[in-house]
């Protein structure tokens, strides 16, 4: 599985969305992405890439695109 596929799959599983909904998604743009959903999403991303995100990055992870930018800090290229 490519990094992009793993990344999208994290969104799909954590937020219970379809793959084509992930790109462009933002925090609170759907009911599932609230604070509870955010915990699940970040946990899924951490598991997918075997990383532990800094709390500043967890807080800044506000969209699909922002997540891609943040993951570069952990040497993960999407």
């Amino acid at each position, binding site marked *: 599985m490519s990094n992009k596929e793993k990344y999208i799959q994290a969104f799909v599983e954590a937020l219970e969305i379809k793959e084509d909904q992930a790109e462009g998604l933002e925090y609170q743009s759907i009911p599932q992405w*609230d604070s509870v959903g955010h915990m699940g999403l970040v946990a899924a991303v951490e598991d997918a890439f075997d990383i532990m995100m800094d709390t500043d990055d967890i807080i800044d992870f506000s969209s699909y695109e922002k997540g891609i930018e943040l993951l570069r800090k952990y040497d993960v290229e999407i």
Partner: protein
Amino acid sequence: MKVIDAVWEKRNLGIDACEVLFEREDAVADISSEFERISAPYTVVKVPSDRNDISEYVQKNGYRYIEDLIGMEHDLHDQVRHPLHQRLYEAVAYRSMTEEDYAVLQHEIQSGIFDSDRISKDLKFGKSISAVRYCNWVADLREQGAALYTMLYRQEPSGFIILLTKDGSCYQSVLGGAYRRYLKTGLGMVQKEQEIVKKLGGKKLTTNVSSNNPSQLKALVANGYVPVTVQHVFVKHN
């Protein structure tokens, strides 16, 4: 049935208001004549959710549904958090609100951090009036001796919580929220009031949440609260 002249709402909303609390033992036949005489410009009615007969009666009298108010309780048990949740929990500190913190809170409320309450959602009121109401409510709570706390992320105010108690044992988490910068960050999952109340010697924590705020309801359940009561809330503008 209790009928309360909501004098605080005259200041908050600019009109006379009345609040009616139906109780589980109320019989429609016994309260109808008093209830039907209520004619305040704005009336709020709260009905226990298992009294469908009262809910129907209220709606037949022109009241419309606006929300469910869900009463939640926490027994202050030690919570086992997911490691990620625990990391965020440890990243947030708190302090008793300073005067400067209080000014920040008022500013944040005026900037519109609340939007799921029945005043915000009411087309005849809206968010601006709701913000005024919240500012006044916070000021009232402060005067009543409530405990106000500022949440801190990296030493920066990130949110607040207000606690009230009558007996030092049962505390009510009356109001709380994240500040604008931290609204879409996941910090809503970090709830420090259980820790605060335990330190204050409390044994139980209660709070209310609106059905118009399912995210907050989910966060409360995720932090160990359980639902104990549900009231249907109806309003009428005369």
